[in-house]
């Protein structure tokens, strides 16, 4: 990391955080809308349609509604943990955006251990889910929290292995350096060299972000709403925002590591980055509205019996090739 921390760099980070907060907020609205539209189109119905043209303001209306709602805490819930959980779910995510290079100029904080920073702070999410499930003193919440911890811990490992393979290959943990190591053409991206790592990373990212088909902590048809059963209003809204923010982070990192970041066949810039991120986000939604949910033991089996060995093999192969 930068050894000297000047006033300028702190100001830069603070400004970046504000920018990230705005970005996440707007994207949350956009993604909620997009998710519902995608669901609608896949299911041959219009999706949100009434608020604004093509229902574009639906997400805003929903956000206003959530903000306006009374905050309700169950009688026997732990007040501290219950309210800490949504805050803890949402705010650390903002930090994750700092090292992400949207373009060479548009980087919040270009640290050379950016990847490490993201992986470290990503762990906060599971803590939030655990607190939410435990603190709300609800059995469904507890089951959801237990699932969240087991799932999160398990899927972090193949995720790391996939990331490590790229780090090995590029010899750096700085995200902008990783992008710099890739070319503009699709065959110059890391996905062409490391397709298996990409697959492992993407599947693990689905698991880490609790997205279908791995949405077990929530698992509506089994646990009603899992860890956030007792949350309403902005308590729920925070979890909701955090989910989408996490998705963006996962897709951004995926773009940086495997899809060449801001680079494209022509006109390099943030638009390439965003296009790739939204492409990945759309495919995440596509998965959600196509597949049934896996069972918990299958989820862990997939991880421990498939992703983990494959990740290790991939890492060893990478190391071997790099050594050559």
């Amino acid at each position, binding site marked *: 990391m930068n050894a000297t921390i000047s006033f300028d760099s702190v100001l830069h980070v603070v400004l970046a955080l504000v920018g990230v907060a705005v970005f996440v907020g707007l994207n949350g609205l956009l993604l909620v809308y997009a998710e519902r539209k*995608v669901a*609608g*189109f*896949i*299911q*041959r*119905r*219009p999706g949100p*349609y009434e608020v604004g043209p093509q229902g574009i303001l639906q997400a805003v209306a929903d956000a206003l509604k959530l903000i306006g709602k009374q905050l309700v805490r169950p009688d026997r819930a732990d007040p501290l943990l219950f309210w800490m959980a949504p805050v803890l779910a949402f705010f650390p995510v903002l930090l994750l955006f700092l090292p992400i290079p949207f373009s060479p100029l548009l980087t919040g904080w270009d640290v050379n251990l950016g990847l490490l920073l993201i992986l470290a702070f990503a762990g906060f999410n599971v803590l939030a889910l655990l607190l939410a499930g435990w603190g709300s003193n609800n059995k469904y919440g507890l089951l959801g929290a237990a699932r969240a911890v087991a799932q999160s811990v398990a899927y972090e490992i193949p995720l790391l292995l996939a990331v490590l393979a790229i780090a090995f290959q590029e010899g750096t943990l700085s995200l902008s350096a990783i992008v710099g190591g890739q070319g503009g053409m699709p065959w110059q991206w890391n996905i062409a060299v490391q397709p298996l790592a990409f697959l492992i990373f993407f599947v693990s990212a689905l698991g880490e972000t609790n997205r279908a088909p791995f949405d077990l902590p929530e698992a509506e048809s089994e646990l009603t709403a899992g860890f956030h059963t007792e949350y309403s209003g902005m308590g729920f809204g925070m979890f909701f925002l955090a989910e989408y923010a996490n998705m963006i982070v996962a897709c951004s990192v995926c773009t940086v590591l495997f899809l060449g970041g801001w680079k494209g066949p022509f006109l390099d810039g943030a638009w390439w980055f965003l296009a790739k991120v939204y492409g990945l986000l759309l495919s995440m939604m*596509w*998965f959600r*509205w*196509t*597949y049934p949910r896996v069972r918990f033991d299958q989820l862990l089996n997939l991880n421990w019996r498939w992703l983990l060995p494959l990740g290790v093999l991939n890492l060893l192969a990478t190391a071997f090739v790099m050594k050559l």
Partner: protein
Amino acid sequence: MASIFRTIADLWSLVVGLGITGKEFCKPGVTVHYPRAEVTPEAAASFRGPIELIGLDKDPAKPKCIACMLCVSACPSNCITVTRAPTPKPTPEELKAMAEAEARGEKPKKPAPPKAPGTWAYDFSLCSLCGSCVEACPVDSIGFSHDIYMVGTKREDFVFDQLARLARKAAARKPEPKPAAKAAPEAATAPAAPVAAPSEPGTATPASEA
């Protein structure tokens, strides 16, 4: 080992699934955007909505009903209340005839109560649309309406005065320019109109009938 390869082969089904939902994504929607669009009247014609009275051929505002009460007893949910029309006061001629008959020592012929209902109330909130009354009616004076878009905001909205409803319907059907002209633009601008939401759905002429 074989199971490993089978599992990998089975993963292909996930790609197939994505292909199907992806294809459906590109197809146009199949839902009807009520209230901008409504089910066609032909599609609604077979729908058995709340019952209504059927008017006489020569006077559509008067029901065929003869107040025989068969529908009332047939109804499993007691949602029909019919009273007979009051016996009219004898006219002077009739009074004269009665007096004459009495003078002759015959039994005076009093005017019979008319074979028509005085009130015809129908509580749709109790009705199960079984059609027992329609089947029971000996003069085919009860039929199903085809109003599939009926709404109401309170329970009382669904207690209909069927005689008034029939009269309104007959008035709306008459080729008099006033109500017809009023109804026509309403139907034409139906999408813009705040959906039927009439405080008294009984009065709303269903789109299929208009």
